[in-house]
């Protein structure tokens, strides 16, 4: 079957929202080459349990591509249509198992040396899609350093090069004021899934005013899901045929109900999101620092939050991989290594939020927990500057945050 042969009945096995979306965009789907169409279907088929903003974004992309002049669309799709395929790939049931097809296609592109042409073609295609209207102000609060020696002057250096280093923060009230800043910003926008607090350890208590509207999730809270994924990983290791590719493939097809995710959260959208943090992330199953970074990244990519608070706490000390899989309950922590991890991760969180923020609309504040040090990056901060002035988080927000 080729995409031009798609019929409304092709999507009979899709869930309701997905089916309706696919039928609505059938005209576009029929015009896409086999190298691209399954990628769209992989997103469409999951739409019932995707965030509302993901549905909106996918509709925007499809509508924008459909609205292109035929000649332009043909020209953009030509390089992707020119990718050589194999009969084996073409025979796969890419309508009902699009994710499997996409994974096999990726292996094929690498092994035939076509991966760069594919990436280039994809980049060109998506560059033709105009940006969605985006006026939201976004705030990312990041906390690092619990339990570590934070006296190093170079701490958070990568992020600090982008903004101002604050060396006179009042640590006594920093936590409280960070939470208040989170609540104030979250109060501006009532949209669902817009405000998130992700914690690598035992979470702080959010202000009452924001508890109903913000989603709070922590590494310990998701421990049942994580342990079930680790059990799956152990099972894969026990086959003695494990490799990275097999591990990724086998984890990627785990459905939320297989992990009994409903025991952790009732919302099917969150069930999928939390499940995928462990089935699509690398290291999230064993290191809380990797979990928080990946959660921040996936939130930015998928939920496009207006407000996030990401708190890194010490991960377990590194051990042999198999040992960490089989014995996930290590109490021996590595606060110093975790701080180094979190410094890089905070920089990545800034990059990730920057991808979804409109120009001039993002504020990032990273506080080194328990200390007088913070870094702030916003349109109002100057790159690579230092302030030694005594300041509270509230004052820093008032001075530098995007209103």
């Amino acid at each position, binding site marked *: 079957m080729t995409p031009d042969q798609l019929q409304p009945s092709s999507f009979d096995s899709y869930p309701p929202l997905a089916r309706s979306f696919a039928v609505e965009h059938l005209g576009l789907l029929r015009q896409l080459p086999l190298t691209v169409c399954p990628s769209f279907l992989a997103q469409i088929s999951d739409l019932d349990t995707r965030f509302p903003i993901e549905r909106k974004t996918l509709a925007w992309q499809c509508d924008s591509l459909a609205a292109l002049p035929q000649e332009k669309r043909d020209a953009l799709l030509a390089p992707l249509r020119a990718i050589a395929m194999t009969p084996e790939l073409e025979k796969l049931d890419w309508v009902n198992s699009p994710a499997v097809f996409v994974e096999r296609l990726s292996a094929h592109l690498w092994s035939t040396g076509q991966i760069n042409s594919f990436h280039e073609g994809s980049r060109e295609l998506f560059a033709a899609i105009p940006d969605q209207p985006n006026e939201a102000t976004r705030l990312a609060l990041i906390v690092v350093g619990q339990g570590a020696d934070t006296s190093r002057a170079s701490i958070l250096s990568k992020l600090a090069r982008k903004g101002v280093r604050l060396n006179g923060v009042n640590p006594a009230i920093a936590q409280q004021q960070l939470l208040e800043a989170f609540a104030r910003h979250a109060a501006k926008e009532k949209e669902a899934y817009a405000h998130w607090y992700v914690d690598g350890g035992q979470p702080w208590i959010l202000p009452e005013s924001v508890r109903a509207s913000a989603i709070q999730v922590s590494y310990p809270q998701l421990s049942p899901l994580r342990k079930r994924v680790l059990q799956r990983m152990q099972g894969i290791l026990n086959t003695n045929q494990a490799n990275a*590719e097999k591990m990724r493939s086998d984890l990627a097809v785990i459905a939320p109900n297989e992990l009994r995710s409903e025991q952790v959260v009732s919302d099917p959208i969150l069930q999928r999101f939390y499940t995928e943090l462990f089935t699509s992330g690398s290291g999230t199953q064993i290191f809380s620092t990797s979990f928080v970074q990946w959660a921040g990244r996936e939130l930015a990519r998928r939920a496009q939050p207006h407000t996030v608070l990401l708190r890194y706490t010490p991960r377990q000390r590194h051990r042999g991989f198999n040992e960490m899989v089989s014995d996930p309950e290590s109490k021996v922590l590595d606060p110093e290594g975790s701080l180094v991890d979190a410094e890089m991760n905070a920089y990545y969180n800034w990059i990730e939020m920057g991808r979804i923020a409109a120009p001039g609309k993002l504020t990032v504040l990273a506080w080194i927990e328990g200390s007088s040090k913070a870094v702030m990056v916003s349109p109002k901060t100057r790159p690579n500057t230092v302030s030694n002035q005594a300041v509270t988080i509230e004052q820093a927000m008032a001075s530098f945050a995007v209103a």
Partner: protein
Amino acid sequence: MVSATSFSSGLALTGSAIRPADKTIVVTFGGGARDEETFAEEGQANIPNLLHTLLPQGTFFTQVRNAGILGHYVATASIVTGVYERFNNFIAQPPPNPTLFEYFRRELRRPETDAWVIAPSNGFQKIGSSSARGFGPQFGAGVILPKRLLSAASRNTNLFDNDQLQHFLQDNYEMPSYDISATAQDNEMHLDTLESTLRLSVQDFVKHAKTLDSADELSIFIAKRLMDRQAPSLMMLTLHDMDVAHSGAFSLYIDAIQRADRLCAELWKAVQSHPEYKDRTTVYIMPDFGRDADDDPAGNGFQHHRTGSAMARTTWLLALGPHVRQNTVVDRAIESIDLVPTIGCHLGFSTNSPGRCIEELR
């Protein structure tokens, strides 16, 4: 296709023995290391030995491009064949194209003890020789996988508590283990030949392993032991600790780079203090490729090498040796598959690599 340069130099020496003084050691970082964590300004603190001790004694190539598949086994196989291999990265299989070791041994008529590979990771069992017609294990390198040796020792003896050595016995996050294709022959050194090859008892091997912190340290220990006992003319080792980056822990990735930096210096020091190697050995140090860029939305920064972007494909090469110009930096782009023809044209054997002999290292 036989490259003109390597073919002509190969013909010139056909029928004669290798110049006995020449020794070659290739060190790859099988983990991928980005410039940002190594030779770029912000990474230089991680590699004081490479930067301040080794680079002034060698020629440094700032742009080495890997245009092949960015998986560690297939990329390492590509480095040793000089051809961008396209086979499944996750099946341990002999490369289809002849390896450096086979070219070297067949054409220069070297004995089987003269070429060795030391690789810490499972999956590299078959890298010592190819399935190419006219080549194969009879011309290949001996392969030592120290972690597998240690694992075998743990099964065959009750000399130690396995828990003490667990950190050696695992592969990294990305590659917990491999399928191994069945072949009639392999050149892997097994526990029963440990003593005869390295003059090292299982007991002493285990005892020494207990004093080390990582698999890469174990590889260097084996390399030095080989130098002492076999003095091979051609040796390759891959350091893999840094591939822990796949777990997303930046600190562990950096620790491993710092360790590799220290171990490279230790190896060079061993070379320069060893009567069989001093002033007659060329050492090539090169990561197999880079890792994804921080700002590439298709990746997740240092963690993986999945995007195929320029940063993931670009790395560096440092060469040191008596015929190599010192304190020299070359910005001209070369490719990772150039290494095999370069060693060939220097030592005097021909290769079928589409890569080119790097003139500065001829």
